Structure formats: C-alpha cells, structure tokens
C-alpha cells in the first residue's frame, strides 16, 4: 500500500513543477501585453488559467505553492521589489476568494475565475490606497472591477475548456 501512494505523490509534485513553469511563462507573456486602460499595472491574469486548473486538479494546497512560487519568481525576473508587494497582495486576495467560492460548490470555474480577477485588481487597489493614504484611488475602482470581471471570466472559460480535456489526468 505504501508504494502506490508514494508514486502518486511523486506524480503530483512533477505535475506541480510543470504547472509552475507554465504559470511563469504566462506571467512573462502578461508583462509583454499590458492593457491600455489608462491605468498602469492592469494585467490580463493569464497565469490564473494555470492556478485555476491547479485548484481543480491537484487541489488548493498545491495550487497555493504553485502560485506563491510563480509570484516570487515573476517579481525576481520581470519586476521590482515594489511590484512584488503589489502583485503578492493581489494574488493572495484573489486566491483566497477563489478557493472559498469553489468550496461553496455553487460556482463554475468561470465564475470562480471571474471573482478571482475582480479580487486580484481590488486587492492591488487596496494596497495602493494603504500606501498612498488616500481614498482618491477609488476613482479607478469601477474600471478595475469591470476589467477584472471581463478578464477573469474570459480566462475562466479557457480554463474550463482545459479542465474538460485534462480531467482524466491522475490527480
């Protein structure tokens, strides 16, 4: 009985490694494709395809590690210390929200992703509010909310298509 579980674990760890690499590539592509919304720093959230797929396949615990490694490495490779704090808060809020929504069992992956996109942007807005000590940042709340929804839902639909294809994968 010991052997198969070990093998299963090794399998999972290997899958996580591949997913982390994939998420990092998406993070990089994202840096190359900024959204022209008049606010610097809004991203498509492409890496969330991988994080979402990970939550549904290998589970939230592994997905969290993938996300944490992804954010740290992306900050080291393509960003500054400053953008890292920003990105981490967005990623944390978004991840927590997505896991909670998934747990309720009421939402589809696309719905979970939509909420994740919104929370990611609003998490970053919260950081900006705190750092700047001004609520004036709220001017950008609607743009961030709507762009987060649109991107999150789009990413979620892509993730759903992917999940349908890989759900036979050993989990």
């Amino acid at each position, binding site marked *: 009985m010991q052997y198969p579980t070990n093998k299963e674990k090794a399998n999972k760890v290997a899958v996580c490694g591949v997913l982390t690499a994939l998420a990092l590539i998406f993070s990089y592509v994202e840096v190359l494709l900024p959204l022209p919304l008049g606010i610097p720093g809004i991203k498509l959230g492409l890496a969330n395809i991988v994080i979402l797929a990970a939550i549904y396949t290998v589970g939230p615990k592994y997905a969290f590690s993938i996300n944490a490694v992804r954010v740290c490495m992306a900050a080291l490779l393509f960003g*500054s210390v400053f953008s890292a704090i920003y990105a981490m808060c967005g990623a944390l809020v978004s991840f927590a929200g997505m896991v909670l929504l998934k747990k309720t069992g009421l*939402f589809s992956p696309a719905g979970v992703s939509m909420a994740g996109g919104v929370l990611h942007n609003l998490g970053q807005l919260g950081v900006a509010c705190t750092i700047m*000590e001004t609520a004036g940042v709220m001017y950008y709340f*609607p743009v961030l909310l709507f762009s987060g929804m649109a991107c999150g839902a789009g990413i979620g639909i892509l993730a759903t298509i992917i999940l349908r294809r890989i759900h036979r994968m050993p989990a």
Partner: protein
Amino acid sequence: MEHKYTFFKKADIVLAAGLIALGFVVLWFTHSAQAGSLAVVVKDGKTIGSYPLAIDKTVEIDNGTDRNVLVIENGSARMQEANCSGQDCIGFGRIDKPGQVILCLPHKLSVTITGEGGSDAISY
C-alpha cells in the same frame, strides 16, 4: 472524480449581476461630469501643494532622492518625468476630472484633481 465542468451556473450570473451593479454605483459616486479645478499633490500622506489647472505650470517635486516633474497645461495635469522604478506614474497620462488620480507608488506620491475648492472631491 467525474467532474462536469459547466461554463456558467446560476450563482455565477447572480454574482456577475451584483458586481456590475456595485461597479455602476461606485461609478455614479466617483465620476461627476464637471471639469476639475485644482491638482492636489500629496506626498507621504501630507498635502504639499495645490495648483489651479487654469494656470500652466511645471511643478518639480524633489526631496533629494525622489524626483517627479508634474506639468499643468491646457487645463490638465500629467507627470512628465520621474526617477521611480517602473515609471508607472507617467503612464497615467493627462488627468482633468474630479477624483482622477496620478499615482507614483514607489515615491508615495499622488496627484488628485478636485472640484471647486475641493468641497465635492473624495476626501482623503
């Protein structure tokens, strides 16, 4: 593990409708139509200056390490130059409506447009 991944469920639609409603409510509160009149510069949580948009002016904010150059011309404000990492503040472009903000996060600097005397602006 027979998952059926549906694209959208009822709860998703309800959540989306709620978010859209919230977005419009905030939009309604924050985006008033009239043009603003003052650019208020706040650094490290303290207001360091307000400049009328009607008067063309170049404002240099320099404390020895952090440098930002704010340009006010033709009734709008924009960040022309900065020595911050990322240069995001320059990317905000021109702002002229009450509530609009230029942020320079690395320098803890914000430029906010307020209406007449700042009475109808979002409070700090």
